């Protein structure tokens, strides 16, 4: 009896906190509409280009998402301190894009590192669309 209660409790609390990537996309969509009245959906192809584009920062260094996450986001990446980064693509790592606070934290940091500015909701949505479409 106790065991079942525990299991039910765990499942219930998991579903209460974990959001599906699709749900996160809907949130970014609402935001993108606010940012741009002409918003016309997210594009995985644009997300792929965004992921791979190398940008030259003001310090002269080049950086892209792929610098740390590798060219194939189904593979694990590495931080500059040589620590493994779990794959970004949900097909390889189902926990990705299920924790909105974590997603925002890393967009907040990495957009400033790579682009030296915050990302738009359009860019975030394209990026997530690209990653969840990878099979």
């Amino acid at each position: 009896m106790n065991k079942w209660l525990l299991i039910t409790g765990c499942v219930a609390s998991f579903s209460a906190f974990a959001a599906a990537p699709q749900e996160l996309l809907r949130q970014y969509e609402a935001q993108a509409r606010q940012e741009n009245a002409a918003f016309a959906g997210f594009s995985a192809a644009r997300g792929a280009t965004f992921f791979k584009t190398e940008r030259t920062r003001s310090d002269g260094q080049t950086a892209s998402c792929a610098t740390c996450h590798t060219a194939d986001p189904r593979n694990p990446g590495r931080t500059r301190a040589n620590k493994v980064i779990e794959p970004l693509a949900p097909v390889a790592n189902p926990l990705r894009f299920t924790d909105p606070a974590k997603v925002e934290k890393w967009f907040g940091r990495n957009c400033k590192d790579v682009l030296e500015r915050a990302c738009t909701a359009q860019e975030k949505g394209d990026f997530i669309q690209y990653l969840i479409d990878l099979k």
Partner: protein
Amino acid sequence: MKKWMQFLILFGSVSAAGTLLASGGGEGDGGRALPPVSNARWKAECSSCHMAYHPGLLPERSWRRIMAGLDRHFGENAALDAPTAADIEQFLVANSADRQPARRSQRILQSIPPGAAPLRISETPYFRAKHDEISPATFKRKSIGSPANCSACHQGAEKGDFSERLVKIPR
């Protein structure tokens, strides 16, 4: 001598030697591990990019400087929300080398000039002296990367144990 007696003697001497080694006898490098410390947010946040360095490896003034500059953390943005940052900073300060009686912490602390607040453990004179036989090329090996990657060579680093007997430098 009976076989079981031989065995007993052998076993006894092996375990005595083991105890002697484990006690760190003759090791002039600060000896035992730093005491275990834990804070859930410190562990989760600090170890997402690198090993969660034991707070006893730097003085309070260094930790305060690090936490004040998280948006420019060694060339990367590692910004945290204010409550998380405050919790982690308090934990780091409470367990910093200044408040850590462990011998290694004290020696790190004593090696740093009073006016200095190094941001890297590898900048402390203690660290430099301890690693003076390691060439820059060794640190740059793919299996190591940089001096920031303690656990590449120090098998006990995650547990705060930097004793020489747990060092294995990968090829």
